[in-house]
């Protein structure tokens, strides 16, 4: 039986380090993209407030108007180069994901930012139409009064708040539902494993739980 919460910040840090080194050494495959690319960050002057982070690119699920506008005036002319492809390409967004420890809920918490190519943040409306969100998670137009008819569903309590270590504006998934979901999943897991394997397994399960709400595949 695995603990339902991470219990302490130290255990969280240990789990993250073990988790990172595990997936750093195995050959990347389609099935472990959620677990890949994470690194551990720590401030020299705030050693116990470390967190995991990674960067990914997102696309837009529904076409939105281009909300980033530049000057239309062309200010230099380059010689015409027939070997340069002239195509706008797909609109992509930079997503920075952070896994931080919530001392209140004693579980990790997913923070993230999504920005346009120039670094400006997406609005709430644009945000939910990126490929980070499963269409069913937030698509309200097809789901009416879902929370009332299925009170047990994983409600994406998305909030805006400062990153606990960086202090920069972020979005985060509220961890209040996490404990309950972890309980359900972990209760099924009867596998024998070492203390360290258990810690890593805990994080893997956490990622799968979070993966119900947001798409963390790369």
């Amino acid at each position: 039986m695995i603990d339902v919460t991470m219990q302490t910040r130290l255990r969280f840090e240990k789990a993250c380090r073990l988790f990172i080194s595990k997936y750093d050494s195995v050959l990347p495959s389609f099935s472990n993209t959620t677990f890949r690319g994470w690194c551990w960050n720590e401030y020299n002057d705030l050693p116990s407030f470390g967190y995991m982070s990674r960067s990914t690119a997102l696309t837009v699920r529904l076409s939105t108007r281009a909300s980033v506008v530049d000057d239309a005036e062309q200010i230099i002319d380059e010689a015409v180069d027939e070997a340069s492809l002239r195509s706008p390409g797909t609109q992509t967004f930079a997503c920075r994901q952070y896994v931080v420890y919530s001392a209140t809920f004693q579980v990790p918490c997913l923070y993230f930012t999504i920005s346009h190519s120039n670094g400006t943040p997406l609005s709430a409306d644009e945000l939910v139409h990126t490929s980070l969100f499963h269409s069913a998670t937030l698509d309200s137009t097809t789901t009416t009064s879902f929370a009332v008819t299925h009170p047990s569903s994983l409600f994406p309590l998305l909030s805006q708040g400062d990153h606990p270590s960086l202090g920069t504006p972020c979005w985060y998934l509220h961890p209040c539902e996490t404990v309950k979901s972890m309980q359900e999943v972990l209760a099924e897991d009867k596998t024998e494993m070492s203390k360290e394997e258990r810690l890593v397994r805990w994080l893997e399960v956490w990622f799968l739980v979070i993966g119900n709400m947001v798409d963390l595949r790369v």
Partner: protein
Amino acid sequence: MTTPPPGTPTIVQFTPLPSQTHPSFWHKLTELKLDVLKLSDAEVEIGGRYGVGRVFRDREAAGEKWVGVGGSLGVDEGSFGGQTTTTTTTSVPVGTAVARGIVKNFNTIEEFKAADKSKIFNQVADKIWSSIHTTKSTTLLNTFLVITYADLKKYKYFYWFAFPAFVSKPAWYIDGALGWVGAAAAAAAATTTGGGGGGGPGYSHDQLKSILDQLHKSAHSGSKPLPYFLVRSSGTTTVDVVPVEEYDPSKDRYTDTLDSTGTGTGTGTAIGFIDPSAGEQNPGWPLRNLLAYIRALYPGDSTKRLKVVCWRDSYVPRGEDGWKSRVGVITLGDGDGTGVGDGKRPDAVGWEKNVQGKLSPRVADLAPMMDPTRLANQAVDLNLKLMRWRIIPSLDLEKIAGTKCLLLGAGTLGCYVARCLMGWGVRTITLVDSARVSFSNPVRQPLFQFSDCLNGGEPKAECAAARLKEVWPGLNATGVSLSIPMPGHPIPESPPSIMEQTRKDVERLERLIEEHDVVYLLMDSRESRWLPSVICRAKGKLVMNAALGFDTFLVMRHGARPAKGEEGGVDEDLKGARRHLGCYYCNDIVAPADSLTDRTLDQMCTVTRPGLASIAASTAVELMMSVIQHPDGFRAAAPPPQSNPNDYPHPSEGGEGEGSSVLGLVPHQLRGYLAQFRNLHVVGAVYDRCTGCSETVIEAYEKEGFSMMLRAFNDPKYLERLTGLDKLYDEGEKAFEGVDWDEGEDEF
């Protein structure tokens, strides 16, 4: 793309590398500018990364729809090095390349615009070119440049990226029919069509896996990841990934017998690179400088035909044919090309085009994320939008935000109503009051504090508005000091200035009501509600009325004036009553009169349980929200009264019928009893002799205007005469003479 006839050479077109600036890059640049660079515009070395282009199945679209997503060169806070954090990284993940760059930050927008862009660009191109010849290293091949100007006051960043790429003259060509093919598919085609011996341009699943593994290991062995590499085939199955620097023209020469269908064999080494392009027939930008490198250092005929691997895989795919990398065999056009032999640098191109596709700088406006006021506005909306995501998808938040609210009375009720409206994201709140903040106010009236009471006290309305703006600067809050004339409170004839002031006050009130959509009656006396009730009825505004007793409250919405021809009578089953709702005065058989003179202090001030005002205020705001969400708005009929409150349907049970909106019921009146913690629904029909809303009164107001009001203020019996209430009273007195009443009826 139309397929050219076999053998037609097609010019190889490269996909430009887009830039991706993470917000933290701007944060760091700001710090650097303020703390280190100050007025210096010296070039600063930075780092960046780009990843492979990706193609994935569109999870939303039906069937097999694939979306290509190109990689981009990303810069972030880590680009500047010298971090204050320690990072335990998974080295550089497979499929990611590291690039070096130069940032040049200008001090003014004029300098930024006037800078000699070609000169700066050519300096970088020269540096790349000379590195090829002097160091024979590929390290600087993907060097990029970014020029910036940071407007730190407005959080605006002007910038322009450039990715210098050498233009090959003659250009590179690929067989038009064969083109670029999937790395795994090409191997299959070659073997099935009799290429034999693992020939053909592609690779087997195991070979591709081996390439991925070697790229993975190279990034982990402490050595640098390889943005460019050679794929050597030794024997039939083994492939070796080695740095491009090890290129040996005699050993790595590529030869083949491929025809236009891709049939045939090929042997020798392929040059590979981390390819950020997602285009089927277009390799990415970094290949251009790799080709220039190969031709510059090995100018012989052996490098005029090359096999290229566009590496686009960052993990082992699900199926053996799931590999995204592409291969192609390209041939140089006739001639040796610039820079070959003589060492002269070929022309370079590569300024990034902006969103409009123009060769022009880009702008990042970060005020929405750095300006606290704008951050607050977003956050207010977010909380409300969350309601819409799941709980009430059809909630019309724009309608709420656009509803302008006029609050008559900035006391206990006014303060709480304003705060609750703000919570709903209402953007325009105007408060009207004539009093000043007194020492008894702050503890019960949450927008005021002790200091507001000093020196005679701040005017309540203005003070409350200012406090609201402190809570949320995005709010359009206004305070108006205005005293509302009341019936039964005569206006003295002299001095004439008083009359003039009254006329002005009435006009001001009329204008304010005109400018708002919902009017809240939150005063502390009964008669002060009369004038706004009449004006609102005439102008068709929704009136929300809240009144407090000691431990009871009344919250109601006034009925709307029926459209012409729809006045209709009152049905016996109360259906008409629920359509034609009454006002605050409809149950009265006397006109509002002076209730303030000759009263003791406890009768004049609202002496109430302290929690009551916030309950009543919240109830009034929530009722308003339910009403404006109703398709009929303030004309919505009230729900049929139920003796048991449990009989009212919950909105989730599809109770969105008569008397109900997406938020639930739209009752006419709610009476709250704090002593029993109980709310009662009441429906009151419009009363045709009402002094507040009967047609007689409204028409008299519309016809006579101020003079009619003046009569009401000055003559306590005027309204009763006008509506005929006086006759009713006399008739009643006569009829009830000699009747004994049984006590004990419910007072409502």
